[in-house]
């Protein structure tokens, strides 16, 4: 009786065990093959920005803006002939302002909706960072189609109020802000002067030379200018780079990208980099 009991139990338990193990195996096997193409990092996603920018809505906005620009151009041509040169400039500035206002009116809502769509999809997928596809080599899930669906839906999309705490270690900063700082602008002005002087010198020399010599001179001057430019900008770039490293280390970041490449989430270190870059530095040349 006892023997029979054991046999009966084994006869039930073993197939059940085998079935359970089979289910677990199939689950992991499926996960292995489905993730073969994309490495598994659920907190980071990627978007094809170019695909979003090519959407019908953005194309139509572009078309409308172009039409408005042409209309303003025609208006300028008609009006300018009746005006003095100084008044012509005034009119030009006024029309440019009108165009900018229209651009804000037409394009901004679209950009805001796109941002909101990205944020919503990211929240739904529990992602804390969304990157531009162009810098991703492999890993994150591509959420472009989800974002497009969301963007084109009739759903009212709320703008992201707060972005969840990111633990990916990805930071970013706005390089344009750094390039607009005084030390960079000072170098830019100096470079313009150097360029003008070189251009003058080149014209004088080129006037007396043959076309082949002129080509050679142009090459030489271009190289000279580039070398001068690098020489003047190198210390500034190094300073930016050192500052970024310092700030990133302080904030426990692993990687710092350009603002353009981070579509959602991440840690913005622009202000810290600006402060660090300008703090106690003497940029006199």
């Amino acid at each position, binding site marked *: 009786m006892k023997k029979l009991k054991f046999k009966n139990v084994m006869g039930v338990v073993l197939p059940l065990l085998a079935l359970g193990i089979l289910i677990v*195996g199939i689950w992991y096997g499926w996960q292995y093959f489905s993730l073969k193409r994309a*490495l598994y990092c659920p907190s980071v996603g990627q978007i094809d920005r170019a695909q979003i920018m090519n959407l019908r809505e953005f194309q139509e906005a572009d078309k409308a803006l172009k039409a408005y620009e042409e209309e303003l151009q025609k208006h300028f041509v008609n009006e300018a002939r009746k005006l003095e040169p100084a008044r012509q400039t005034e009119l030009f500035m006024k029309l440019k302002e009108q165009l900018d206002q229209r651009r804000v009116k037409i394009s901004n809502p679209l950009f805001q909706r796109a941002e909101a769509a990205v944020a919503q999809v990211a929240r739904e997928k529990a992602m804390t960072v969304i990157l531009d596809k162009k810098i991703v*080599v*492999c890993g994150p899930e591509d959420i472009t189609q989800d974002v497009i669906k969301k963007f084109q839906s009739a759903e009212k999309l709320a703008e992201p109020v707060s972005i969840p705490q990111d*633990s990916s270690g990805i930071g970013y900063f706005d390089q344009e802000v750094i390039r607009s700082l005084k030390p960079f602008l000072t170098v830019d002005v100096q470079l313009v002067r150097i360029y003008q002087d070189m251009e003058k010198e080149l014209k004088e020399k080129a006037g007396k030379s043959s076309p082949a010599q002129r080509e050679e001179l142009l090459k030489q001057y271009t190289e000279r200018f580039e070398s001068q430019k690098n020489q003047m900008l190198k210390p500034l770039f190094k300073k930016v780079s050192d500052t970024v490293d310092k700030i990133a280390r302080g904030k426990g970041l692993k990687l*710092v990208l350009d603002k353009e490449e981070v579509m959602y989430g991440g840690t913005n270190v622009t202000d810290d980099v600006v402060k660090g870059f300008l703090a106690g530095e003497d940029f006199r040349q």
Partner: protein
Amino acid sequence: MKKRYLLLIPLVLIISGVVFLGLRHQELFKFASAEDALPIGVVDFQKLLRLSPSWDRLMELDRKVTEMEGVLSSSSEGVMDTLLGEHMLGLKRERVKAAGEMEKEMLRIKKQLEQELTENKKQAVETIRAIEEKFTRMQKARNTNSQEEDQGGFPASEEEIRGPHAAEKKMVYAEIRDSVDDLYLLSKRQVAAKTLELEQKVKARIEELQKKQDAESNSFEMKMLQANQARKLNLQLKIQVAATTEERNKIQDELNKIAEDESAQKETMVAGMHQESERLRSLETVALRKEIFAFKVRLDAELSQKVSAIQEKAAVKISGKTGVPPAQLALGNFNQPQDLKREYNEKMLQLQAEQNKAMEQAGQQYEKKKTELAERLKKIEQDMFKRVMEKRKLIEKSQKEEYAKKAEALSSLKKQRERLFLTMVDELKGMVGKVARKKRVPLVLAGYISSLDCEDLTEISARAIKEEKPR
């Protein structure tokens, strides 16, 4: 029963293997659930691209694309410019030749007209001289008659006076002649002064008109330039950003047309002003001559009265000395004969009128010829423009096919390049993905500003690519 258990053993082993693999897989992605640790890898994708087996082919395609772009740009601009340039050079030569010939013809006509006018003038001078001679002859004849008759008429010279009271008469004659000569001299000076004054007035009026015309011309030119400035600026900007040669040529044509219009408007304006100036000059000259003539007539009348008064006075003087009553003295008339003078003046007026008419006619003839030649030149230019346009169309037509073929080839090359590049990128991404999986790095990025705690997978990926390359 035992056999049944033995059959279960391989099944259990297979299932255990699958479970083991699954667990290994879970081990591999254990970071997936651990939120605090996301390893990030970075690669220098450009470097990896250069190591790709297809890199040389990509470079070759790039070279071909650049070469084809160069060929296309030179076939659309260079060849067209060269062919059109040669054609235009020939046409320009034709135009210069035509303009030169016309200039020569204008000069010839001008010379001919001037010669005709000089001839007219010469004839007029000769006619005047003939009238003057006739006038002098008639005066002399009258003098001779009065001497013979000693009765009225034109006074004889004092040396020829004989007969009773000859000495007294001679003395008075001398006095009268002196006074009359003075009066005539004064009259001549007055005429000369008046002529000068009037001529200066006319000159001033013409100068004033010219100044006004210059100002008007400048103002017109400024207005015209201002009116077209914005349009020209706009077209010049458009030409800078024009995408095709066709578009650029179209804009250039528009710019040329504006310049031609401006030039034509200016020419019309200048021609109108010149005509107006000539008309005024002619009118002023006629008015001047009329005024001088009227002044001379008035002066002659005054002179005649004065001479008569002197003569009467002289008669009274001689009468006092000789006792002969003034009416019987018959001193003659010191005034120039009125009928002859009238004829002289009328003839002069007629000659002046003829001279003016001839000048006016010559001017009109010259202007007519000038307009004719300008029209001819304009026609030549229009014809030139038409021929350039036709030539351009011909070149465009012959090149269009060739251009389309090359453009198609370029487009195909570009597509080929794009396809290859995307394949290369996909292959490299796949390879980096494999490396990343081996290294348990779930996120690999290319392009960063600062990388602190990321694993650089460039070298290891490069090795993997090199290993795969021979295959």
